């Protein structure tokens, strides 16, 4: 079986991911590009005697290396030499999408064009002369509809034909006009003579073009000064002759080439109408209605996550209760009771307490995926730009923040779409204030325990909104102090509205859910076991327990353990917040991973290996905290919301900002803030509730 590698390139929103899903099915996995944290999706497919490895490159508008994504895509094509590059083109927006194709043609890679969303193009009245266009672009063209799985086999066949074909030099590449063409040829010849090393990897013509376009990255790779000098001279000469910047002229030629090719090969059968997307936009991005609609949609998302999610959550909860009872009832006699306790209280309760929230997490990620895939997310960024601008960020910062509702780690990665360092760092610092899936699990546990039923949905919404408001205030302060300075220009595409496919949503949700489960099975399992030991040892002297009831015994045992001691030590500090030492121990545990707050509470509150008395955790919380219950519940949630981000977030912040300093600034800054805010809320609140 022959093996080949195929890279998928394409504009953002060209449906590249749906084509990738169509080609590879569920045989894919997500990894990071070595050295950077841009996600790399890889998938496999067997077809016609070939094992094809597909790489989904990040979506880019060009290969100019302006953003990290562009650089990663370009480096992959240059360094890994894929056998074929498939450029996924949104055929309903053909001219802009072909700009990337012209750059791939310049790189002289074996190219196949997937004219995706061809159904929409047809609806818009576009008819393509594929043969003619294929000849002009010197690449095979296949019409596809990724979302409906159409054109997959044709695309695979075209890929194999292109891979098998003897590589020939393209004949009539894009012409930049006589003057520029001459300069390119001169420079290319010079490079070929002098720099043997560079042309092993790069096509000399392409190197010449990039040097003339003043591409910094390529200029660094060319060691020879004569070449650089020649390039500088050429740029000056062209400016003198043609009176314009060279890169402007070249872009002009590329678009000229595209529009020429399109005029010859595309027929428009219907005149352009006011599109469906425009109609929706006139409502959703309306000056008056936009913001309320956005807030309402967020409210709906959280209601759904909570209301629908509560059923499967209940089943999982009963399942773990049942598992505990079974383990205890069928334990062989009185042998190794400590192991039984470890299994029941450490492993089952600890991990179960986290796994229980999987349905909610899946619903939340599915909701985020829907917002993203329909194109609404970009509108949300646009709507929020007005607000964001006032605090010194732009609307684009809002996208990583929304992802932060799922998990801070990918959200911090997503800040790479922000080109400006100040904007980016400010956004990273406040991302933990967007309540992530793990914090959601904490709310899902606490809200029913501390609030009456009719308040529950509203409380959940409120805590999210509080997070957003605090984030806004923090940004404002950061932008006036640490990250002072100009904002960068804001450019973003509003993609047309689209129906997401179930397959894409399912895959996305599953991949995120699986990450959550993996975390539960590894770090949380390990931490649960460690926490169990910390709460069990050292044991108190046997004689001190005589004549006490079960509850009192449990209390004494706990307070003599490592966990109890830590909790007691910090109790004076957290007492003004309304927290007792048991909550304190849970907060300490949650530094490793936010979910461990629940795990720790479950462990602390479980009465020592006694099935009859091991009530569920919510019941125990309600039983314990009778005074000012709603205020206490709110303060615990508030502290969890603001305080120290989890270890994974700290590590990611370090990686993305390049320094431990910023990571520590975030960690301690937020924890101190959490303390102050909760202190104020509790102390003021207590005045009102008595």
């Amino acid at each position, binding site marked *: 079986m022959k093996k080949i590698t195929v890279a998928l390139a394409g504009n953002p929103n060209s449906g590249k991911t749906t084509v990738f899903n169509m080609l590879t099915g569920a045989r894919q996995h997500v990894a990071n590009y070595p050295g950077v944290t841009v996600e790399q999706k890889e998938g496999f497919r067997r077809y016609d005697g070939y094992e094809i490895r597909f790489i989904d490159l990040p979506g880019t508008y060009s290969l100019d290396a*302006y953003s990290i994504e562009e650089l990663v895509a370009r480096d992959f094509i240059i360094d890994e030499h894929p056998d074929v590059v498939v450029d996924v083109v949104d055929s309903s927006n*053909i001219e802009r999408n072909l700009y990337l194709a012209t750059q791939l043609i310049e790189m002289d890679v074996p190219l196949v064009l997937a004219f995706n969303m061809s159904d929409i193009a047809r609806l818009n009245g576009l008819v393509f002369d594929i043969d003619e266009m294929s000849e002009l672009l010197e690449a095979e063209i296949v019409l596809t509809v990724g979302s409906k799985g159409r054109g997959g086999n044709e695309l695979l066949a075209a890929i194999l034909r292109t891979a098998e074909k003897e590589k020939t030099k393209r004949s009539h590449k894009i012409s930049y006009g006589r003057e520029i063409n001459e300069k390119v040829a001169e420079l290319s010849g010079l490079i070929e003579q002098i720099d043997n090393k560079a042309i092993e990897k790069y096509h000399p013509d392409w190197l010449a073009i990039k040097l003339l376009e003043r591409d910094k990255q390529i200029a660094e790779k060319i060691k020879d000064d004569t070449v650089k000098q020649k390039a500088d001279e050429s740029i000056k000469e062209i400016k003198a002759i043609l009176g314009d910047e060279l890169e402007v002229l070249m872009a002009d030629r590329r678009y000229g080439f595209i529009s020429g090719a399109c005029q010859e090969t595309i027929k428009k059968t219907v005149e352009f109408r006011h599109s469906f997307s425009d109609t929706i*936009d006139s409502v959703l991005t309306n000056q008056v209605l936009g913001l309320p609609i956005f807030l309402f949609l967020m409210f709906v998302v959280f209601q759904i996550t909570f209301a629908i999610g509560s059923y499967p959550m209940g089943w999982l909860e009963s399942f773990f209760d049942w598992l505990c009872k079974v383990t205890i009832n069928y334990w062989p006699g009185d042998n190794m009771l400590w192991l039984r306790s470890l299994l029941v209280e450490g492993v089952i309760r600890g991990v179960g307490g986290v796994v229980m929230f999987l349905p909610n997490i899946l619903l939340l990620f599915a909701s985020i995926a829907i917002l993203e895939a329909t194109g609404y997310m970009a509108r949300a960024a*646009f709507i929020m*730009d*007005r607000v964001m601008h006032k605090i010194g960020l732009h609307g684009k910062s809002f996208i990583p923040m929304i992802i932060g509702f799922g998990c801070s780690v990918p959200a911090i990665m997503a800040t790479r779409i922000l*080109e400006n360092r100040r904007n980016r760092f400010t956004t990273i610092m406040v991302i933990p204030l967007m309540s992530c899936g793990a914090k959601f699990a904490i709310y899902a546990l606490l809200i029913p325990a501390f609030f009456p039923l009719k308040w529950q949905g509203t409380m959940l919404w409120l805590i999210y909104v509080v997070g957003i408001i605090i984030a806004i205030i923090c940004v404002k302060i950061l932008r006036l102090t640490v990250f002072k300075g100009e904002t960068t220009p804001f*450019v973003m*595409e509003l993609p047309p509205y689209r129906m997401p496919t179930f397959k894409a949503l399912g895959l996305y949700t599953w991949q995120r859910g699986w990450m959550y489960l993996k975390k539960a099975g590894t770090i949380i399992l390990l931490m649960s076991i460690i926490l169990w030991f910390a709460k069990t040892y050292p044991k108190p002297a046997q004689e001190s327990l005589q004549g006490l009831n079960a509850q009192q015994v449990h209390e004494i045992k706990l307070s003599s353990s490592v966990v109890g001691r830590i909790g007691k030590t910090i109790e004076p500090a957290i007492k003004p917040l309304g927290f007792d030492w048991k909550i304190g121990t849970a907060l300490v545990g949650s530094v490793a991973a936010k979910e461990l707050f629940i795990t720790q509470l479950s462990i602390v509150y479980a009465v020592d290996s006694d099935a009859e008395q091991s009530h569920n955790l919510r019941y125990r919380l309600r039983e314990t905290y009778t005074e000012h219950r709603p205020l206490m519940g709110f303060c615990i949630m508030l502290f969890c919301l603001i305080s120290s981000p989890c270890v994974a977030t700290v590590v990611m912040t370090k990686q993305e900002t390049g320094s431990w300093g910023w990571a520590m600034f975030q960690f301690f800054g937020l924890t101190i803030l959490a303390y102050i805010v909760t202190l104020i809320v509790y102390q003021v609140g207590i005045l009102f509730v008595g």
Partner: protein
Amino acid sequence: MEIKDVRPLALVKDGETVKIVNIAAGCGLNSRLRAMGLWPGVEIVVVNNRNSGAFVVKVKESKIVLGRGIANKIMVS
């Protein structure tokens, strides 16, 4: 093309169709705008210039949001 008609994009009202004359942005931003289809010579339609925040234009089939800052740097006629 008369010189006196040239004005910054930010001053163009909703629904007007204009032609880009010049973009006075840095090299990096320039290349990004080019790749998104905004470069001297193309016609764009202003879709949304109502609020004080970002600005929406339509170029060919795509809608692009531009910040106020950029809208001031793009000269149109």
